[in-house]
């Protein structure tokens, strides 16, 4: 019975089926919100699913001169890592896997797709893929540190690296975003960099290098990469909601899932707003912003938190 339950958790809720469905819905929220902000109509709610199914049905081409097996393997590994990370972040107030240090493991699992993307770009003999892959990796070095610093503040305050404990710590007093707004901003920008969204979307700046590392990919492989990006978005937002926005059970414990859902959608809308308000940064500007602004701010926030907590 217990095995069956676990299997259900893994495959249905809050595992694979749930994560994919919600990731697709969230992708719709993103696109719709951006459309409304830009004065457009936007897509219908099933559009991300339709895109995904259509891509899955398209001819899957292997680029001449690239390693076909590796090209097929990379998106699978990336998607698997993103989904596994999804199992560790709390959905509502429950995560399938929870242990001390799961925050770090989640972050690590989330960075696998980026490395996969870099490799995917690198194995294709095309300059767009190569430049895009390079930029992915460069950006990885830029946002990973601010994201980690941004998430370390609450962890230091609550003296735990466990997501569930961080959430319950917030229900004990108040949301971490109120105590550490700077850390929240730093972590959000780090997350935008991780998700390669405007203004930090240089790895696939359409007007410069086409689709970047994914330029030569099509069909199933492209569909899996897309899905990976959407799941990554969902997991990243889950993480931020759990660490900074009090997770699920702050206001009304019985409506935890609803509260959590509202926060996730709201945060997604916030990201769409950022996308609507800013132009893309250049690669050197990304590095400059990260190391000159975000890292010092993140360190400062962390230092203040540790000093206050001590």
């Amino acid at each position, binding site marked *: 019975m217990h095995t069956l339950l676990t299997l259900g958790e893994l495959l249905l809720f809050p595992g694979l089926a749930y994560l994919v469905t919600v990731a697709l819905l969230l992708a719709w929220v993103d696109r719709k919100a951006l459309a409304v902000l*830009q*004065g457009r109509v936007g897509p219908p709610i099933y559009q991300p699913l339709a895109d995904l199914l259509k891509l899955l049905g398209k001819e899957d081409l292997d680029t001449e001169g690239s390693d076909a097996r590796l090209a097929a393997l990379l998106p699978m590994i990336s998607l698997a890592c993103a989904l596994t990370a999804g199992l560790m972040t709390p959905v509502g107030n429950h995560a399938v896997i929870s242990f001390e240090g799961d925050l770090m493991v989640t972050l690590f699992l989330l960075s696998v797709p980026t490395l996969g993307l870099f490799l995917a770009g690198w194995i294709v003999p095309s300059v767009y893929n190569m430049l895009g892959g390079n930029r992915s990796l460069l950006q990885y070095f830029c946002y990973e540190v601010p994201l980690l610093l941004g998430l370390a503040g609450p962890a230091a305050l609550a003296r735990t690296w466990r997501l569930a404990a961080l959430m319950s710590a917030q229900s004990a007093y108040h949301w971490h975003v109120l105590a550490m707004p700077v850390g929240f901003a730093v972590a959000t920008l780090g997350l935008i960099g991780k998700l390669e969204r405007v203004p930090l979307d240089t790895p696939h700046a359409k*007007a410069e*290098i086409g689709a970047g590392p994914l330029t030569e990919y099509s069909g199933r492989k492209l569909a899996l990469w897309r899905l990976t990006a959407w799941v990554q978005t969902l997991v990243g937002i889950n993480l931020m909601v759990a660490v900074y926005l009090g997770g699920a059970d702050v206001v009304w414990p019985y409506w935890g899932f609803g509260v959590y859902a509202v926060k996730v959608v709201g945060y997604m809308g916030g990201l769409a707003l950022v996308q609507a308000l800013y132009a893309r940064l*250049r*690669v050197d500007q990304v590095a400059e912003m990260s190391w000159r602004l975000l890292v010092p701010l993140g360190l400062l926030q962390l230092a203040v938190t540790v000093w206050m907590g001590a």
Partner: protein
Amino acid sequence: MSRVTVPIGPQHPLLKEPIALRLDVVGERVVAAEIEIGYVHRGLERLLQGRTFQQGVAVVERICGICSHAHTTAYCQAVEALIDVDLPPRAAAIRTLLCELERLHSHLLWLGVLSEAIGFTTVFMYAWRDREQVLDAMELISGGRIAHGANVVGGVREDVSPAQAREVLTMLRQLEMQLGLYQELVERDRSFHRRTRGIAVLSAAQVQAYGVVGPMARASGATLDIRRSAPYAAYGWLEVPAAVTNEGDVWARAWTRVQELQHSIDLCRTLLSALPAGPLARRVAERVQAGEAVSRVEAPRGELFYYVRSEGERTAARVKARTPTLPALLAMAELLPGLQTGDIAAVVAGCDLCMACADR
């Protein structure tokens, strides 16, 4: 670091029309650039030979999809100079009105293209949405959104009724309200400044050396504007303000165009509020006396030049068009080396290329 060649075009998301840029890149910096055009060369200058002068209007209208009215204006003006017919005042005013409306939609299109190139999709959406209104107004007057067919040798074909004038004035008012947004963007938005300030600076000396014209030249301190220096059509009666700045970078090109948006709105208003009465066109003979004529028009992208030669027959002996994109391309080839790859898009979009014009 190794040197790689990044091909941009003839098909690339950055480009709206085919042109091939071959950029040699080391790391993230462009070290050499080569431009190849001619992908949409349709031999229109050859086609114009042996067509009657009236038929030629339809051909030159199809050189470009953005500044089609500027092309017919320049061409008709040259033929009218050959025939030595003067334009009725009402025709001159309507021709000028369409020229300015065209400038509005061309500049808005450009602003959208530039914004998209720097990843600022919101501005792109807004600019193109506002551009739709201008296209609607042009359709209202001429029946066509892109090819207006409004010019004929000796005048114009389309009248502007008082009701149409009111509708266009309403459109202009709505557009002017939106314009504040673009002025704010150009003057204050830091995100926009970061991607456009100090990039690809074109000096006044380079403007002269490459013969750059239009807003791109005016962004580098040149005052060249045919509407002011050699007024044609109704520009003689109008006060055309200068939008000149000295920065010479991509930002200055945006600033110049946004100023010109406001100027064009004002010019359209002035024209619509006092459209002279009178005939729309003079009757002209089909046969044109032998001779040659040149005409210069300030198209949205800059000085558009036409040369027309007649050998006394019903058909044209030679029609030559020099479009503003050619010198812009020459200057662009000079601007690209030394840029970061991330700036290529802003610079190429910022040069306001029209390949159909350049290739003919």
